[in-house]
């Protein structure tokens, strides 16, 4: 085991120990902080509820991701297809991305109800921008000669987009997906916290109302882990696809 990893491991263990003892010694009250053991107890007690809730939330997340991916890539490919298009769409997309999307959720609740649809809609909007912007940039950041070559050998516009631009943009698309996936996961769960009858977010909120602190922390911990794992997984995917590109750029 390398030195930095060892240090980090020690730090993590130390944090856990301090965390546990802070609660043991009641330095921070039970209504504010849950110790690792309390979180463990909550898990042992409530894991069936969490599992059921997670299944519901997972469906919403996957649906939102899929739609965000399709929409984002399509818009990104079109927005990046010519220099002029990207000069027009780029700033528009980036400016829109600054909008606090959470403020649109109440509107979504009016339009789509309090069920899964509004969560999916919110998830889609959350994940859309990073994917679209990254796709667009992915196409922009290479030589226009690829498009010229495609035309010279007789590719139709659709073929150019699908067989040349899309593979070229793929590493960037995955990067955008990596950024977007955390936004979608947390977005969906937060939306559930704001108004929902089911799902992890709803579970977290109801446990908070019941002052079951251990379960609240557990729910948040699970959500964070979910986002981090997704991020890690996509990072690995991104590295896999970026290999040929990095090499190419350095030549």
């Amino acid at each position, binding site marked *: 085991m390398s030195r930095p990893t060892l240090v*980090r491991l020690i730090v993590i263990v130390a944090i856990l120990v301090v965390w546990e003892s802070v609660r043991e010694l009641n330095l921070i009250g039970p*209504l*504010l*902080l849950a110790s690792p053991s309390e979180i463990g107890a909550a898990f042992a007690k409530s894991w069936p509820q969490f599992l059921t809730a997670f299944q519901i939330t997972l469906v919403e997340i996957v649906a939102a991701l899929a739609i965000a991916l399709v929409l984002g890539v399509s818009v990104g490919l079109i927005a990046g297809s010519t*220099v*002029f298009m990207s*000069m*027009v769409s780029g*700033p*528009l997309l980036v*400016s*829109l991305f*600054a*909008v*606090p*999307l*959470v*403020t*649109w*959720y*109440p*509107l979504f*609740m*009016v*339009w789509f109800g309090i069920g899964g649809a509004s969560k999916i809609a919110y998830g889609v909007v959350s994940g859309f921008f990073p994917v679209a912007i990254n796709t667009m940039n992915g196409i922009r950041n290479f030589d226009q000669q690829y498009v010229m070559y495609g035309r010279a050998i007789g590719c139709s516009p659709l073929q150019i987009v699908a067989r040349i631009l899309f593979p070229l943009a793929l590493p960037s698309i995955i990067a955008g997906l990596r950024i977007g996936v*955390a*936004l979608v996961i*947390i*977005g969906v*769960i*937060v939306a559930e*916290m*704001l*108004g929902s009858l089911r799902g992890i977010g709803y579970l*977290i*909120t109801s446990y*908070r109302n019941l002052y079951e*602190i251990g379960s*609240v*922390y557990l*729910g*948040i911990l699970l*959500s*964070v882990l979910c*986002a*981090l794992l997704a*991020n890690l997984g996509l990072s690995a995917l991104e590295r896999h696809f970026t290999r040929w590109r990095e090499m190419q750029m350095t030549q």
Partner: protein
Amino acid sequence: MYFVASQSMLKARVIITQIAVIVAILAAWESAVDAHWIAADILPPPSTVMVTLGGLLRSMDFLANAGDTLVRVLAAFAIGAPLALLVGFIMGENITIGKSFSPIFNLVLAVPQSIFLPIFALVFGLGFTEKLMFGITHVFFVVAVSTMAAVHQVSHAHVIAARSFGATRLRIWLSIYLPAMAPHVITGLRVGMIFNIIGILLAEMYASQSGLGMLLLRWSESYEVNQLMAATIFISVVTILINEAMRLWEAGVGRWQSARMAE
């Protein structure tokens, strides 16, 4: 290969196209509702939105709530930003501290902080403090990390050169550190402000007696679509304006950067 008379011609074409796109969308929206393709009580047309917004901006209730939100946003920024600048600077200058703590900061930034709201509600209750603290953390981490990166941007060679000329610490700070760091720090501040706004509004939506977020949720529950739409668009537009203003500042400060990068 493209022949363009000048950069400004191209820029003008771009801006005109962008405006045209926005106008086209608004026009399509207006006529879609006009032609009853979309019900006005689900998606109010731009004309109704403008009228409603006008009314809201004259209503004391709305202004009071907007004021509350503004106070929270500014307070959180006023506390969080300087603190983060200081911490970020220390982390940038001191390698040990930087290496020890930056992984934690980066980990926090890897996950949208919205998820931690229930914890803030538990620890701080549901009042002003909770929202303030929530906003502060939103500002803090991103500004600290940006500032740390900004410090790393400062050219060591320049600092050494300046010292060899006998420049005082203050001088070095003003003429080398500040210009090199400024663009990155401002970027951090800009993103921090955006995160801050998101955080405060979310906290207000979650549980609050006052504020724009609270209004949004209230109108959503009572199906007052006109007000909801007007307020949502208002918030979006204001945030975009803040973002663009800070971006202009960022760009202005960073103008010399590209020349420097070419070294």
